[in-house]
């Protein structure tokens, strides 16, 4: 296949929330920007199917933000950094109102509601904003690999326009990795394209990762459905298969309690406590929440329905590419990371950043990375760093997907972790990695790269989870159930074939310094 070659100042990989903000911020610096997206900018990524509520704290009186940060820092169990939290609160506060031309924010009694935006409308607005600002969008154009210059800095990327079956190369002065997180094929809502591609590309180019042990957040959904919109479940009651009510209260402990109940048998949910007036408006608040019930003829406020837990991997988990400066640059010069592709340890610590921090981070880190990338400009000669793929397939797509799901999704293995189980899972993932790392799986390059990325992400996660011999936040070890004050540090993971895990003792900015 001959390659089309494009040249640009900044290449943004991934057109979800973070990638769109990165592209807009970069183009506003007066440089040329290409935004390459595996699917379609506007529908792709987990933002498009969700309804992100951002971390939204007014600047005055100043105690409000100080209090919000102190509270959230305490929940992060020592791994977050108040300085980064302050930065995302401020950037979010200043940014969301600038979207008013493309998103209709509701104003009530003189107060405009900026905090929460509905996904499909939000991402439609982001596409419009990017086009208006002058970003060149390439839809249906998955990136396969980064290219590097001789000095080890990033020089661009290669990919394909998958609907045209046309290979391409983008030569770029800098690259923003905004490929989102990795859901380990769990069918989490909107995560189909979130296969950890950015982690694999970045690590192959020499970047490292952080927070990879915190990759086991879960969300409740009706069985066989991906609908992890959880608002209504804040009123939920749960029952076992003989109709006994279970002692499961909505709140931070709900996942653990639900997982234990599911390990004993079927669990049924009842939403009878949702007030009538809220039931009536639900289709216009979260239309996708009601759709699966409608289509099965279930009235969730009257009928009990069976539920399951969907694994979120690094999405509402924490792990991602480690960033080393305020512009979210990675260890690879010229490569920046934003959104769920980057670690959220800085702003969420050991507990999920879903519900406020993650979207504020995507929006903020996107803009910082976009601006940082725009300052580099210089185009370099490139060498592709991809692995040589040859030989006959040893595993099918389905075999790879099944193996990952079987090891990474069951709460019995991945929520309640132990040395022996983690080792068994790792052994299997290592074997799958050996079978796919330099051999084809399907006939499509982008698909194979996504499979490799997810397997690689599973291995990084399991290695980090083995190393953290304590329980902290979402990382629960049944063999080390207590918090160990000597492990209040981050774990940095690197390497493709040989995975290394190193503690990182950097000091966070103390709260008092803000």
């Amino acid at each position, binding site marked *: 296949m001959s390659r089309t070659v494009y040249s640009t100042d900044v290449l943004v990989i991934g057109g979800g929330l973070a990638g769109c903000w990165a592209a807009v911020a970069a183009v506003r610096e007066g440089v040329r920007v290409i935004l390459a997206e*595996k*699917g*379609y900018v*506007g*529908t*792709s*990524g987990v933002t*498009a*199917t969700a*309804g992100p*509520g951002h971390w939204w704290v007014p600047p005055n009186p100043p105690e409000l933000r100080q209090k919000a940060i102190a509270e959230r820092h305490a929940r992060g169990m020592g791994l977050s950094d108040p300085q980064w939290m302050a930065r995302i609160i401020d950037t979010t506060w200043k940014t969301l109102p600038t979207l008013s031309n493309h998103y*209709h*924010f*509701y104003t009530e009694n003189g107060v405009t*509601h900026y*905090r*929460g*935006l*509905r996904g*499909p*409308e939000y991402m439609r607005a982001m596409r419009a904003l990017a086009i208006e600002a002058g970003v060149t969008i390439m*839809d*249906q154009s998955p990136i396969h690999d980064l290219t590097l210059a001789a000095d080890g800095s990033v020089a661009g990327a290669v990919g394909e326009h*998958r*609907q045209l079956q046309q290979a391409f190369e983008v030569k770029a002065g800098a690259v923003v990795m905004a490929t989102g997180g990795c859901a380990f094929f769990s*069918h989490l*809502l*909107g*995560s*189909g*394209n979130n296969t950890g591609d950015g982690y694999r590309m970045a690590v192959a180019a020499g970047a490292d990762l952080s927070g990879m042990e915190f990759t086991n957040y879960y969300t409740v959904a*009706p069985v*066989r*459905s*991906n*609908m992890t919109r959880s*608002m209504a479940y*804040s*009123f939920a009651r749960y029952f076992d298969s003989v109709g006994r009510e279970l002692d499961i209260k*909505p709140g931070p402990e709900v996942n653990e309690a639900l997982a234990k109940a599911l390990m004993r048998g079927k669990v049924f949910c009842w939403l009878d*406590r949702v*007030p009538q007036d*809220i039931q009536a*408006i639900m*289709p*216009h*608040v*979260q*239309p*996708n929440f*009601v*759709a*699966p019930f*409608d*289509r*099965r003829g279930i009235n969730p406020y009257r009928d009990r329905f069976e539920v399951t837990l969907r694994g979120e991997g690094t999405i509402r988990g924490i792990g991602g590419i480690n960033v080393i400066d305020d512009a979210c640059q990675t260890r690879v010069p010229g490569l920046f990371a934003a959104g769920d592709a980057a670690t959220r340890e800085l702003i969420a610590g050991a507990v999920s950043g879903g519900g406020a921090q993650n979207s504020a981070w995507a929006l903020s880190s996107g803009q910082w990375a976009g601006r940082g990338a725009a300052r580099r400009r210089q185009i370099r000669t490139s060498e592709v760093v991809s692995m040589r793929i040859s030989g006959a397939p040893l595993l099918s797509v389905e075999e790879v997907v099944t193996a990952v799901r079987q090891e990474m999704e069951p709460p019995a293995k991945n929520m309640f972790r132990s040395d022996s189980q983690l080792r068994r899972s790792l052994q299997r993932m290592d074997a799958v990695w050996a079978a796919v790392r330099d051999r084809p799986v399907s006939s499509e390059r982008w698909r194979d790269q996504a499979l490799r990325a997810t397997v690689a992400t599973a291995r990084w996660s399991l290695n980090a989870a083995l190393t953290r011999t304590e329980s902290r936040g979402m990382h629960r070890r049944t063999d080390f159930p207590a918090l160990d004050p000597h492990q209040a540090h981050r774990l940095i993971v690197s390497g493709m074939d040989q995975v290394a895990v190193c503690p990182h003792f950097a000091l966070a900015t103390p709260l008092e310094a803000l």
Partner: protein
Amino acid sequence: MIADLDPSICNGCGVCVQICPANVFDMGAGTPVIARTDDCQTCFLCELYCETDAIYVDPDCEAPVAVDREQISPLRGKFRRESGWGEQAAEHPNLHWRMDEIFRRAREA
């Protein structure tokens, strides 16, 4: 997963081919065809973008489900209507901004 694209309703605009994040559709003779069902991520977004309501997505995300066109007929376009998408916006305003209040009432309950 994607369950139906009814060619007798579809106007052949090709929007679904362009916007599906999983690239499930191929343009066929005049109307698109569902070419890669297994890749569907059950996001319902093709229903939003299809102006003729020719598309129907079944909520089962694990395996394809065969549907009966007559049976699903009353459900066609309902998600797009409730979302207030496109021309539906005036009649069905987006009430997503009420989320905060709903969460607050759940905490108080």
